[in-house]
């Protein structure tokens, strides 16, 4: 069984509309498959696009994922939302596509992690960011900035950040899809968030920035 079509645990059951659609799909109703594509396709295409940053590859992934899902319908146990199941298949198909890309030398992330003095204090004290309400006034620009910064993260860190913080998979499921231990996911997630924070920091500091001390 492809891992993306594996049973899901601890999720809500299908909605009545989904249950009806499932019955029609399993009966081989071609109209039902088109309905599935039109109902879920847009959201799923956005998911694939987040991982791949490439329109053509995202479209290929959506197609492959929906065909895989259709073939695996008999194995869908109906104990989860159909939308959640499809989401996981698209995430997994996107990850497989990422893995199949020719591997390039990954940009190191160390430069984006906080630096410490020998005594363990922060080398550069952190400064406060602007209030959330201020950022909301410039929501469009802020969102665009955040997306650009996420794109700058090395693939292995960006992927974990997307899986955990954006697609909201839990640590265990992210670990299973990536073929790593849950602890490795936690370490990578923490580094990815720290690196993203460093990239955002110069743009979001409260101005004028005041110097602050560190702990004794």
């Amino acid at each position: 069984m492809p891992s993306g079509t594996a049973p899901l645990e601890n999720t809500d059951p299908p909605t009545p509309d989904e249950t009806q659609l499932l019955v029609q799909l399993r009966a081989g109703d071609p109209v039902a498959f088109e309905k599935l594509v039109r109902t879920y396709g847009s959201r799923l295409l956005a998911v694939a696009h987040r991982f791949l940053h490439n329109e053509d590859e995202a479209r290929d992934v959506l197609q492959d994922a929906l065909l895989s899902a259709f073939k695996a319908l008999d194995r869908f146990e109906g104990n989860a939302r159909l939308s959640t199941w499809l989401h996981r298949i698209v995430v997994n198909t996107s990850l497989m596509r990422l893995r199949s890309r020719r591997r390039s030398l990954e940009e190191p992330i160390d430069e984006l992690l906080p630096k410490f003095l020998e005594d363990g204090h922060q080398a550069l004290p952190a400064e406060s960011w602007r209030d959330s309400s201020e950022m909301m006034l410039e929501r469009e620009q802020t969102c665009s900035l955040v997306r650009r910064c996420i794109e700058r993260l090395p693939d292995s860190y960006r992927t974990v950040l997307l899986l955990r913080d954006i697609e909201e998979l839990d640590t265990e499921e992210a670990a299973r899809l990536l073929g790593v231990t849950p602890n490795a996911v936690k370490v990578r997630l923490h580094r990815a968030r720290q690196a993203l924070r460093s990239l955002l920091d110069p743009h979001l500091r409260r101005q004028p920035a005041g110097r602050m001390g560190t702990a004794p």
Partner: protein
Amino acid sequence: MTEKPYITCRELIEFLLDYLTGELAEERSVEFERHLAVCPSCVAYIRSYEETIRLGRMAFISPDAPAGESEEVPEDLVKAILAARGK
């Protein structure tokens, strides 16, 4: 009685994820709180770390997000998928 030394900024930031998810032992959490009470830099760091998570989520649910989720699937893609299914 000598007061226990503070944990360092490095220790706090290294185990920040566990602290924020409540996975630290209570005694360890107390050490974190003690450090935070005297370290405005770490307080600022934690706030901006949490804001980073929130902004990441916001960036992809924003109406102007690329490949907008409110849009319909491109018609040519729908046709391609339906055709591929028929093969």
